């Protein structure tokens, strides 16, 4: 059970991750970006039990916190908005 001193953040998803799972956004509690990953995997599998998304795929996500390029180790604060985009681009 997350405690109340863990920041509440809003997560928005992009890339094939979103198309494969139908998961657009979610609210979660996390101290660092990487703490969101198990939650995402759980939600992704709940959204689409047949999804082939793995933890390694989520690890490869490009991360933006409040519009700034960030890393998975980036610390989060209360009310942050996190954008996560699965790898694979090209165009």
């Amino acid at each position, binding site marked *: 059970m997350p405690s109340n001193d863990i920041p509440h953040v809003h997560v928005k998803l992009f890339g094939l991750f979103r198309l494969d799972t139908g998961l657009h956004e979610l609210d979660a509690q996390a101290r660092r970006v990487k703490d969101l990953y198990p939650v995402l995997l759980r939600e992704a599998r709940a959204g689409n039990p047949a999804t082939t998304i793995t933890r390694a795929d989520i690890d490869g996500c490009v991360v933006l916190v409040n519009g700034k390029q960030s890393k998975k180790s980036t610390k989060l604060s209360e009310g942050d908005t996190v954008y996560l985009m699965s790898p694979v*681009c090209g165009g």
Partner: protein
Amino acid sequence: MATSYSGYMGKVLELDLTTRTAKEYPWTDEDRRLYIGGKIMAAKILDGMLTGHEDALSAENPVVISTGPLTGTGAPCSSRFNISALSPQTGIVASSNCGGTFGYHLKKAGLDALVIRGACETRSWISIENGEVEFHDAEADGVWGLRVTPAQERIEELLVQKWGARRAFGQLVIGPAGENLVLYAGVTSDERAAGRTGLGAVLGFKNVKGIAVFGNHEITVADPVRNAAWNKRFFKTLREHPLTGKQMPRMGTPGLVSPMQMRGMLATRNFSAGRFDAFDKVSGETLAEEANVANRGCVSCPIRCSRTVELDGQLVKGPELETLGLLSANIENDDLNVVLRLNHALNELGMDTISCAGTLAWAMEANERGLWECGLSFGSAQELEGIIEDIAYRRGIGADLADGSKRLARKYGGEEFAIQSKGLELSAYEPRRAVGMGLGYAVSNRGGCHLNGGYLVIMEGLGLFCDPQTPKAKADMTMMFQDLMEATAAAGQCLFSTYVFFPSMLITRPRGLVTTVVNKAAPHVGWALRAINKFPRAVHMHMPILPHTRSFEYATGMKMKMGDFMRSGERGYTLERYISQRFGISAKDDTLPKRLTDTPQDPADPTTKVPLDELKQTYYEARGWTPDGRPKVSTLQKLKIV
């Protein structure tokens, strides 16, 4: 001239529109070996015709429509054909590549290329059956004046009437924009476009509304068994690659809107920023979820990158990334439906979506700064459908807008925010967060083009992520990518097929050890790339990362190892530059607007601008050009251009 190579039809037809006569253009096997086909072949033909005194909109501007040897041989993504001529936007040699079925049917008509000279006295359309040419009255036939879809339908109807039955054929047409000499009018074949550089206006000036081609020649391959087996493997590689098998089929090029936003390279508000707050309303994901009805593709393509959307109950072609970005973030429009409408209107009127959208963004900024009171402003895109129509018919402010941002800025001021190079508007990648792409835009032979510029964004954040702000190794990478893409296009294949150059693991595991090493090492291997660029024959083998060369060998019977392929690309690229020199092109023309070179995108980070002068000098050195950007005689001799 007959050929001993397979894949080629062995004939190039020279058509004089003024005298309505046709003859064979001499093209030898030695020419085929050196200049492959497509745009490189076209450059060689233009080299022999252009003196440096011709105008793009004149009867003296020759147009070369050429195919590649792989078209029609079963190689994947090989339906492309090329149109080259002087561009009315840039005034120098330009090329534009197109899918559709025209290239295939040109070969079925027994021709590798068409060389068009002179101009028709009256408005015409042309049919070519098995090499035999017929001129038709485009006005009496009710073709002139039509938009591109009805024009193609009308030509088909006329041909069916003539034949008394339906037959397979290929055609290309111009829309009202080409007829009215909009400087960025394109040429359309089926629903694909040779959109860039204004070649539709060149055909419009020549009074050519369309060309239909058909015939029953056989396209042969040198080694049918190995050709079929290899291409089967090549198809499989494309289907299994994360970019060509997953990302592109699922989202098409619009799938790049989000990555570009993440990397700060989504051109926003006429390239004054790299991120657009409302990007998700117009992202590739949203397009896929809410608007895309089906994927379509060119003949023999497993990728099928084209989107199909529903508009007013009709299924129409959806936007490409460049159009989507430039008609949304760059003009601050967050309404996807408006983008779809504008894209469709531009396609039907036969206009380059990139140049038109870039010109509109310039006009919005010029209006807001009080330089040109045209009534356009950022964020109000609803009214643009009427404006686009006015551009195509050169009415009201449309008459000015039809000339593009470079000429408008000369007239009204605001050159520092006219986002073009050599007269061609940049596509949607904001280069201050990808400085190698900035170099590419500036030196590209056809002006501000992301593809002809080497498409380094794929190394700088849209695939790999090697430091997008460092100039290190970018010049050598640019040259290598430009040359590879040049040869790929000349062979008749789509540039998207070159994605297989990047091993899957580098794309799907961006934080993996190998990818991290590649990203970190890339800026330090400029010397190695320089050595390969200088001595490509050292790569005298087929490489798994470039299946194209084996397809080439098995189809044509011509030896084509990776090194030969690179050298052919270099020859084509240098030759275009060599011709453009006659029209006064040198380093002074390899420019970007001041906004991109002098003003950092992030005021707190001085590296977020394009260090163009430094990049250019290294690039000229890499290419064996003088510091003034002219190919040295020794370079021309090495490439057998002189």
